[in-house]
């Protein structure tokens, strides 16, 4: 007892010269909904792979409820449920059979596995599809069934690797509701995603990772306060934006000003969101600079994310 459901200690994975995970230290608490947020190639899936026994760490340790995943792989597998990015449902079986046999793999007795399959189909509104072959399921239904399957053996920790990529908004919101309910019932969950909103809605704490390192770990609110408290205001004008930038620097709430001359854009980071946009537009009018576009981005996880990971393209 007392062991964290998930802990990594200086966890490291290299593929040849590529460093995928670079000394990662994480701890997920019992019952916590924890998010790994990072751009493509940040090391999220490799981390999940190491925690779920399918990727061998190059260095450091990964522990699931105190068990080293490499030395106790079968015991660790018993404690975890995994929803991976790809659809890994058993295409040769029906919806119901996918759940039943999964239960059997985990040592659930026949009658118990039958009852559990029925119960989960009911819970995930899949009862009508019980006899359908999995092959014919739509993306959203398949996703729901994958989640149901991961829960058959009542795992201590649920791993979700980008569970909502490529599914429609209704299905996504529905899935969020299910995940919130599970978490409320005490399900410890580790989610990877690159959707900021998803992380913001679901996660109690978030680790923002990039290049295999955790750049920041905290609650969404704290992350915003620490790294993205600024409102980002951009004003695009016709003509030279420099005089507007000068005026912007004199406004009291403004913390920093960037100018992009080729697009005639002034980007301002301000300590408050109220009024600054209006003041800037007024200044542009006074300077006789026609305003083509003006926008204000309130503090968000996205700002935090971009501040920490940069704006350049990935992949």
């Amino acid at each position: 007892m007392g062991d964290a459901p998930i802990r990594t200690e200086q966890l490291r994975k290299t593929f040849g010269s590529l460093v995928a995970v670079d000394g990662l230290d994480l701890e997920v608490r019992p019952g916590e909904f924890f998010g790994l947020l990072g751009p493509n190639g940040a090391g999220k899936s490799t981390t999940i792979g190491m925690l779920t026994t399918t990727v061998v760490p190059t260095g450091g340790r990964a522990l699931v409820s105190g068990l080293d995943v490499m030395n106790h792989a079968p015991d660790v597998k018993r404690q975890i449920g995994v929803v991976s990015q790809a659809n890994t449902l058993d295409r040769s079986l029906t919806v119901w059979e996918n759940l039943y046999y999964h239960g059997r793999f985990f040592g659930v007795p026949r009658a118990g596995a039958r009852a559990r399959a029925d119960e989960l189909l009911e819970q995930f509104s899949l009862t009508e599809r019980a006899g359908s072959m999995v092959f014919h399921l739509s993306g959203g239904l398949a996703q729901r069934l994958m989640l149901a399957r991961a829960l058959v053996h009542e795992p201590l920790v649920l791993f979700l690797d980008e569970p909502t990529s490529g599914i429609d908004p209704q299905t996504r919101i529905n899935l969020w509701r299910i995940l919130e309910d599970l978490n409320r019932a005490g399900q410890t969950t580790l989610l990877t995603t690159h959707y900021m909103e998803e992380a913001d809605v679901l996660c109690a704490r978030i680790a923002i990772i990039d290049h295999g390192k955790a750049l920041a770990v905290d609650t969404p609110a704290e992350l915003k306060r620490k790294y993205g408290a600024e409102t980002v205001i951009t004003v695009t004008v016709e003509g030279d934006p420099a005089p507007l930038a000068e005026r912007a620097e004199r406004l009291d709430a403004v913390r920093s000003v960037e100018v992009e001359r080729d697009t005639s854009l002034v980007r301002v980071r301000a300590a408050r969101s109220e009024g600054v946009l209006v003041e800037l537009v007024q200044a542009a009018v006074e300077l006789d600079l026609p305003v083509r576009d003006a926008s204000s981005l309130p503090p968000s996880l996205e700002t935090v994310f971009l501040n920490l990971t940069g704006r350049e393209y990935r992949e």
Partner: protein
Amino acid sequence: MSAYLHTFGALLARDIRVLRRNFGQFLVRTVMQPLLFVFVFAYVFPKIGQGFHGAAAGVSFSTVLVPGLIAVAINFQGISAVALPLVQEFSVSREIEDRVLAPVPVWVVGFEKICIGAMQSLLAAGVVFPIVYLVHAEGEAPDVHVYDPWLFAFALIFASFLAAAMGLFIGTVLDPRKVTLLFAVVVLPLTFLGCIYYPWAVLTPILWLKLLVLLNPMVYMSEALRASLTPQLPHMPAWAFSLALVGGSVGLAILSLRTFHARVVT
């Protein structure tokens, strides 16, 4: 340990469920080749007067064929039942990613694949036996009996296990984009040079071939079945094919479980 056995049993139950569902496909896949083969060689050829003869005087060609065609069925079924689904699972369906998360060491998942493949090989042998025994022209009946039941059982079991282990090895190392080469590069040479249509002993006039085919596991399957079903024909000494079948089964099982592990755990 008993938990591992439970999981192993459940993996097997899942595969048997799928086999039952697709049993028609299994039968067609298994029956067609030997049926056409004996139809042409043991029925059409004697009827039209074109023919082959058995290796020894007075022995019909169908007698030579029975053990060989059972070996083909075992081999073909073992390889295709394990390798083809696996290639698909590694590349397209990714089902294997979930299966290896079953609470057992990864090798147990691979070993179960070998066992279900071997079971299908045994079933295939059971299906083929009556066909090759029954389909022939008048006077061309094969002279086949199970002379040595223990040797027959040994040959069937180890031939099946060896074929399935080969299937697992191929399934884990074959590039999915090259799956069409499986038949041209592996199955056909194994079959045509597997002492199916002639006993190994009669290859003496082509000594280099006689030695080269010793690398082919099918030779030992055919020869072991030949020794148990048609001992009147020349065949390899029992110690030779026994050693090759047992050693080959164990060696290939270990090798294929390693390649399986390397494929699913990176």
